[in-house]
């Protein structure tokens, strides 16, 4: 029998569910019994309710089984599932035909879960580095124009057009420029950055290198949150691989162009995901927000022009270069072009990563993909866009997933995190949590956020206690206005959105004794 490949994900979630020990068990079994099977540590497909998801390579595609935790692996082996046992309860059929995956349009996540993240040949066999090779033959302006034409907007939250940002850096003359990747992924309910870095690290490296070549930067930093140790290990190895094969470093692929990368770890502050705080932190200082202007694209890291992009923004770049701006631009609606990897979590049946073009409604995402609540009770509220995103009531779930459509309902898509709550949720507690989160995570520089968030918690407590409830609700709304208009950055400026939305759409939860 030919060598059979058995794929076991090496992804933080899968590993937390025992994927490492599953891989070891399989390995032992195969070698002890002289079976010509190879265990490959791939990334995750992002179907988290099925993790650890094991895939067996066959002529008709990869056959999936899941969830196969360490307590099941012996039975799995005994049932000869690795030889394809269609009768086994965990048999899922061809992985690409699982509807959850089949319905998606995986553009940025095309390789995620498919390849061995640390195999250069796997990567190259899946169009890896074709974007870079093409970019090396293009002028900076040509690359930037492609990105502009693709309609790609920043996936870190603010949705600023990536090409325009790059243009500014390209146009700003300087002896030194930088590319910084924001991998601080602090939003609650988000994990697409982590998945990409763990499952397809070379894609990020390629994207950053293209960015560097496009704007004339020869040095890049990945600002990675410290809570992602596996992503760190994988990225570090991937950087070495890329460097050893001259995809990074000096005179990349004999093009005469240079670009190299370094990873810097954060220290557990949410605010260091805000780009100017991140720059301060990268410079070795306390993570404190800088006023803008000057824009980081003009005066960024160490005062030099700097491209700052989210992991997903940068990971989308190579595919745009390979497939052309219009192929990316063809996805999506209105001014929201391309795809966004949404991340379902919270009280949801099928939590996982869903990369689809903009335009689908939130409701479809929640039910068609998410399958409704996990508890079986009715869903009541959904927070989209991380801890600074609004809580949306059912009446707003028909909104299409489109940046502007969400803005028009005072919501935001942000980094694509979607957290669902069923009808047992206490929305005043959620509102209080938003203020509390801000109080804990505020950098402390500006007054509306530093003191306002603390007072916000206190005022909500008073409302709940029935103390002067009408006056205190007025005060809370006025405080929200002060924070929105007065704060220096979006931390204090957006915290009121979830609070206001809870108060507006779930007013009954703010009655005393409720």
């Amino acid at each position, binding site marked *: 029998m030919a060598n059979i490949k058995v794929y076991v994900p090496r992804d933080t979630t899968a590993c937390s569910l025992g994927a490492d020990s599953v891989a070891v068990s399989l390995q032992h079994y195969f070698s002890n019994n002289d079976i010509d099977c190879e265990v490959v540590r791939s990334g995750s497909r992002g179907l988290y309710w099925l993790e650890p998801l094991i895939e067996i390579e066959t002529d008709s595609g990869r056959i999936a089984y899941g969830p196969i935790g360490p307590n099941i692996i012996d039975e799995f082996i005994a049932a000869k599932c690795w030889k394809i046992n269609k009768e086994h309860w965990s048999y899922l059929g061809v992985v690409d035909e699982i509807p959850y995956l089949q319905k998606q349009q995986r553009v940025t996540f095309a390789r995620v879960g498919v390849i061995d993240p640390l195999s250069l040949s796997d990567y190259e066999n899946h169009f890896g580095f074709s974007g870079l090779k093409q970019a090396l033959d293009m002028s900076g302006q040509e690359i930037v124009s492609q990105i502009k034409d693709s309609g790609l907007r920043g996936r870190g939250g603010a949705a600023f057009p990536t090409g325009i940002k790059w243009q500014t850096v390209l146009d700003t003359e300087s002896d030194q420029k930088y590319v910084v990747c924001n991998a601080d992924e602090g939003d609650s309910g988000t994990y697409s950055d982590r998945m990409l870095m763990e499952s397809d690290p070379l894609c990020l490296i390629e994207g950053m290198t293209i960015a560097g070549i496009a704007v004339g930067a020869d040095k890049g930093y990945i600002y990675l949150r410290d809570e992602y140790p596996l992503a760190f290990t994988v990225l570090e190895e991937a950087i070495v691989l890329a460097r050893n094969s001259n995809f990074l470093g000096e005179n990349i692929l004999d093009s005469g162009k240079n670009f190299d990368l370094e990873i810097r770890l954060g220290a557990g502050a949410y605010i260091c995901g805000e780009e100017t705080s991140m720059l301060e932190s990268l410079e070795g200082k306390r993570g*404190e927000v800088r006023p803008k202007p000057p824009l980081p694209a003009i005066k960024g890291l160490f005062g030099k022009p700097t491209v700052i992009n989210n992991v997903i923004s940068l990971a989308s770049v190579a595919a745009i270069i390979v497939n052309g701006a219009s192929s990316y631009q063809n996805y999506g609606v209105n001014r929201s072009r391309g795809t966004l990897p949404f991340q379902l979590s919270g009280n949801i049946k099928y939590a996982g990563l869903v990369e689809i073009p903009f335009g689908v409604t939130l409701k479809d995402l929640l039910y068609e993909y998410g399958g409704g609540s996990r508890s079986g009770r009715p869903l009541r509220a959904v927070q989209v866009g991380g801890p600074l995103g609004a809580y949306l009531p059912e009446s707003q779930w028909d909104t299409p997933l489109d940046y502007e459509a969400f803005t028009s309902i005072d919501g935001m898509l942000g980094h694509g995190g979607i957290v669902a709550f069923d009808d047992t949720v206490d929305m005043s507690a959620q509102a209080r949590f938003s203020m509390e989160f*801000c109080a804990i*995570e505020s950098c402390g520089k500006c007054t509306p956020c530093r003191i306002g968030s603390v007072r916000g918690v206190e005022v909500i407590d008073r409302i709940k206690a029935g103390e002067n409830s009408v006056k205190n609700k007025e005060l809370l709304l006025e405080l929200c206005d002060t924070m929105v208009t007065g704060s220096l950055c979006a931390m204090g400026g957006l915290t009121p959105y979830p609070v206001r939305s809870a108060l507006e759409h779930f007013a009954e939860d703010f009655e005393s004794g409720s």
Partner: protein
Amino acid sequence: MLQYYDPNKNSQPGQVIDPRRDYGTPAISIDADETVQLVTLSIDGQEVKMPEGTSIMRAAAHLDINIPRLCATDSLQAFGSCRICLVQIEGRKGFPASCTTQVEEGMIVRTQSQETAKLRRNIMELYISDHPLDCLTCAANGDCQLQDMAGTVGLREVRYGYHGENHLDAVKDESHSYFTFDPAKCIVCSRCVRACEEVQGTFALTIDGRGFESKVSAGQNEAFMDSECVSCGACVQACPTATLMENSVIENGLPEHDVVTTCAYCGVGCAFKAEVRGDQVVGMVPFKGGKANRGHSCVKGRFAFGYSTHKDRITKPMIRNNIDEPWQQASWEEAVEFAANKIKTIQKEYGSDSVGGITSSRCTNEETYLVQKLVRAAFGNNNVDTCARVCHSPTGYGLKTTLGESAGTQTFDSVEKSNVIIVIGANPTDAHPVFASRMKRRLREGAKLIVADPRRIDLVKSPHIDSEHHLNLLPGTNFALLNALAHVIVREGLEDKEFIELRCEDDAFLHWKEFISDPKNSPEAMAQGHWSAGRAHYCSGKTLWKSR
């Protein structure tokens, strides 16, 4: 002084200032010969022309429009943290901070409206919800910007109450003999932290923690006295509240007037406002109009003014006929007449050259000038000297001979524009701390530093300062080093020929050139020790820098 740098020479709008006012943000730094784009904008219906790069806040100040502010002061870069200074700009959404937003052509700014008023009041309300309510007994009462701003924005109530989370129990730090740190009154504006960094360059302070826990910390949560603090007082001066306060003011109360004077401690010549109550000095605040110090000072001038009212200080003239007699108090008329008579008698008996005058190096230039005048006009001779010459006659002679003037050829301000700074045989952080602070600021901006000194002085490596080279030569070899440098310059034809043509006498220069080109002045020869042969010139306390 020829071709010296004077920041005020370029009298663009917004550059020439009234040193007693605070314009909120610093003027942009421009050379005398630099042209800057002027932009015209309108603020509250009044037009003003300002150089590009100026903040809206500063532009407004020139129209006498005082935008409320707490975290901004014109000795520090704009920071944008208090959010009291928010304004409206036509065509822009939101409320940009006037301290961090720069003027632009055609901008239409409104500094007052119902919305801004409400916003400012609501922000002030947040401040006061975490502030002790003891203005009447507070040491800063009457000189507190928080108090002023609460009044300016019309704060009338604090709807949050005063029992929320707060810092009122924070413990005072009284470790420092000259000032007290009372964190209960701190509004976390970071002015102290920034002053310690930007103005003084010591980096003793930081903000520790984040969010509501953010607090000013000396060193790593140490007492001020145990931290790296060098007691310059810049933080105290920058603090808008009573949080950092001079002990002299805590003990005595605020001054009722001030007198601008010059510090008598060292040759830097810092200008101060002596803050006075009656005849008692309660504070010495560095004066922004001072050309040497531009509003900064060191610990001596700032805090060590106890001598001015010390009981041992002699404030009345005293006379005695000879050294064995006790001193007798006298009136000024008596004393002057006595002295005049004695001098005249001596001159009559021993000739007019028999008397002279010496001034101390601690005298100001003005005082020294007056003494010289007295000697020349009244004594009728040239017997006048200053003790500075005793240490500095070699310096003075050398400078006079080579550069035509026995004094520095540049203003202190010029260091702001230097790209390479060479420090030879001087230790500015210790000896001339105020100048050192100004130099360090420029070094942090990227100027290169070369230190030639046997000692590893502070400047060689200190926070955010790293000298490009430290040549720790042997004591007594400064001169050899300079000659070797000059030798190479001449040998490789790197001298500034245009300058030489314009400023040097041909013969003298050729003579020098011949001398310096001698191989025995080459670095190679110097390294072999030939320098010691017969040229024992001791070169000390000389700070040289190269402008641009």
